[in-house]
């Protein structure tokens, strides 16, 4: 009955799986980015859960760093996506295979 | 996991009054009552304040304003509300049905959620979170998403423009807002709302706004940023009537429109409250410390609560009046001017200001001679500013009065308490 570490791990596992699924199956670069966010959140949730169940505060501090890095990652990735969109009028990740137009 | 759910259902269905744990039932009831109170407060605030705003606007524009429904028109908001209730709730055929229906509740919920940490009096606060101020900054994210949702789901270009503008504006102005509020956190050493109030005193020279010149500037910076976050003129680009008809809620009607309006005017209270708590000493009553209030019992305790509530509402109302007057004073900015104001002026300004607060706090020992000298000087600065303001208003009025008397042979004076 008690909620413990395993339950959180299952939730984060589901997040990870769905995120991976989105990354693998989507063609839209923004949608792939959403998948990356899900995967990141799965990892951060794990960190916080471990910190709660006997890990001390270090996990939370690292999750904080993770959130900050995710913000930086999202900003740069979205800037790139927008540039690709401006260049090709499309956010199809498969079409963006050329580095030079 | 399934076992857990089964146990839960079993416990829920096999209700046994003797062994039942009532603690969470009381918790749910208390939470429900608190949110109901907050809702009633928003309704009772947001309604009359629309009337108040329209009366002030009338005054400023040489008009009268609504004065037909009820004595002096005070029930105008009720008439407007009933009208909205009775109107047809239209959903455009091409709209994204689900999101369109859900968005108003998200926006309203975002504003409601701020009331969880906003104090109303000495002990009148739903949850004095340890991270209260940060929570206030964070919960506006819900509002941004709600507005974007409304803008997109309406399937109208005006609504989408309004939604995107609003989101850009809210995200941008959150930065100067956070910077200037963080200077308060530096001064107070805590992010809990009650803690911040506790670090100030009841008298003006004990307030954070007059603690030093940088915090004085931070007060105006944070007020500007919150006015922008509340989508009020001069920053009401998201609903600029002349360009976007009504912005993100252009397709809404009836009750759903009313939710947006609730949030908009309820936000006026949130703006005023944050400024009051962080800079104007909150609910502090002169002559009594928070500890003494907490220690009192019975009737005295509730008396102090009522008194502190009155003090708080009075301070917040002055700020609300100020924000309303600001709305009818300044013209709307252009989109590029809006972004320039934020990124070129408010963000660097707030950052410099934060550095100034930091240096002053590090150099000047608290409650020392230098500290009191700085407080006195800042208070003097504030009084000087207020005097200049009053003098300017008076000079303008007197000049026009003489002109009017010469032209019409009548007095221009119109006492503020008299309502036509």
């Amino acid at each position, binding site marked *: 009955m008690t909620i413990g570490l395993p339950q959180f791990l299952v939730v984060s596992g589901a997040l990870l799986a769905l995120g991976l699924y989105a990354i693998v199956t989507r063609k839209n670069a923004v949608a792939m980015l959403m998948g990356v966010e899900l995967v990141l959140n799965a990892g951060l949730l794990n960190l916080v859960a471990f910190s709660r169940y006997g890990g001390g505060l270090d996990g939370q501090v690292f999750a904080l760093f993770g959130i900050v890095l995710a913000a930086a990652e999202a900003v740069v990735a979205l800037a790139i996506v927008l540039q690709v969109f401006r260049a090709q009028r499309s956010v199809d990740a498969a079409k963006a295979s050329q580095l030079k137009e | 996991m399934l076992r857990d759910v089964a146990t839960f259902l079993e416990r829920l269905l096999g209700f046994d009054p003797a062994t039942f744990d009532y603690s969470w039932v009381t918790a749910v009831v208390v939470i429900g009552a608190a949110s109901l109170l907050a809702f009633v407060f928003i309704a009772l605030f947001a309604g009359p304040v629309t009337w108040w705003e329209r009366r002030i606007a009338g005054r400023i524009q040489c008009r009268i304003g609504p004065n037909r429904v009820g004595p002096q028109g005070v029930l105008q908001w009720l008439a407007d509300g009933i009208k909205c209730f009775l109107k047809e709730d239209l959903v455009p055929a091409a709209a994204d049905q689900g999101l369109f229906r859900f968005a108003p509740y998200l926006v309203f919920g975002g504003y409601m959620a701020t009331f969880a940490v906003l104090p109303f009096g000495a002990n009148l606060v739903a949850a004095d979170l340890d991270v209260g101020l940060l929570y206030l900054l964070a919960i506006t994210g819900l509002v941004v998403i709600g507005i974007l949702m409304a803008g997109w789901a309406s399937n109208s270009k005006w609504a989408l423009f309004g939604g995107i503008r609003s989101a850009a504006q809210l995200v941008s102005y959150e930065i100067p807002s956070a910077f200037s509020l963080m200077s308060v956190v530096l001064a107070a050493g805590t992010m809990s709302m009650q803690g911040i109030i506790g670090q100030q005193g009841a008298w003006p020279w004990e307030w954070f706004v007059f603690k030093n010149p940088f915090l004085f500037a931070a007060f105006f910076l944070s007020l500007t940023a919150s006015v922008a976050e509340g989508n009020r003129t001069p920053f009401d680009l998201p609903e600029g009537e002349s360009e976007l008809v009504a912005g993100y809620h252009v397709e809404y009607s009836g009750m759903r429109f009313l939710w947006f309006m609730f949030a908009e005017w309820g936000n006026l209270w949130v703006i005023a409250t944050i400024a009051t708590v962080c800079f104007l000493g909150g609910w502090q009553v002169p002559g009594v410390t928070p500890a003494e209030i907490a220690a009192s019992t019975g009737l005295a305790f509730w008396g102090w609560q009522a008194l502190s509530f009155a003090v708080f509402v009075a301070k917040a109302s002055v700020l609300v009046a100020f924000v309303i007057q600001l709305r009818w004073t300044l013209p709307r900015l252009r989109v590029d001017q809006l972004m320039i104001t934020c990124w070129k*002026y408010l963000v660097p300004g707030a950052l410099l200001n934060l550095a100034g607060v930091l240096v002053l706090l590090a150099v000047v020992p608290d409650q020392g001679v230098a500290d009191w000298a700085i407080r006195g000087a800042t208070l003097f600065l504030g009084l000087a500013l207020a005097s200049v303001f009053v003098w300017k208003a008076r000079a303008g009025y007197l000049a026009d009065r003489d002109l009017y008397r010469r032209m019409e042979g009548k*007095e221009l004076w119109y006492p503020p308490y008299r309502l036509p």
Partner: protein
Amino acid sequence: MVSAVPPPVGDPMPGRGTGGLKGWIANWARTATTVLDGLAVTMSWMFRRPLTIQYPDKIPQPVQQMLPETYRGILELDVRLCTGCLQCQKTCPIGCIDIVVEKNEAGGRDITRFDIDVSRCMYCGLCSEVCTFAALRHSSEFEATQPDIRNLNLHFVTKPVPVARHKPGEAPPRAPRGSILKDVIPGYGRRPGKAPDGGEKNR
């Protein structure tokens, strides 16, 4: 195509910062002072007499009485003067006047219908210009609020009226301006715009 670049006309806002750190600080100072000025102006207006005259119940006399003689309000027809010449119907640019003139048993002609759809009328005044005997004139009445738009199709003739026969200069005096509309507009007396003094509303 060469688009002409407008020549610089000078700084519309003198004293504005021009860029750089100095301009940045100047802009801050300008913002502070101008906002203070603006707030002082609006504050001084808080204590001034409003110019609004509250219509319709707090005015010294009905607006209808304050309007000039040449005001073009709702059209009214004095049937006793109408010769049935149909000039007004022909000249109306939107055709909101509907007249039917029929022969009667006595060999004369009767006006059996004279309808003016006020909801369509644009108050141009052409019909009253062409009316030789001043049968059709604008009144000073302008309150056209009705529960049903069909009420605004005014029937000036309810039973056949023989056309008037008179030479110019011999016509009977015209009914006072606005006195006819009382019987033509449905629910005339019950409208909110009643004169507070209870006096004669229309001339």
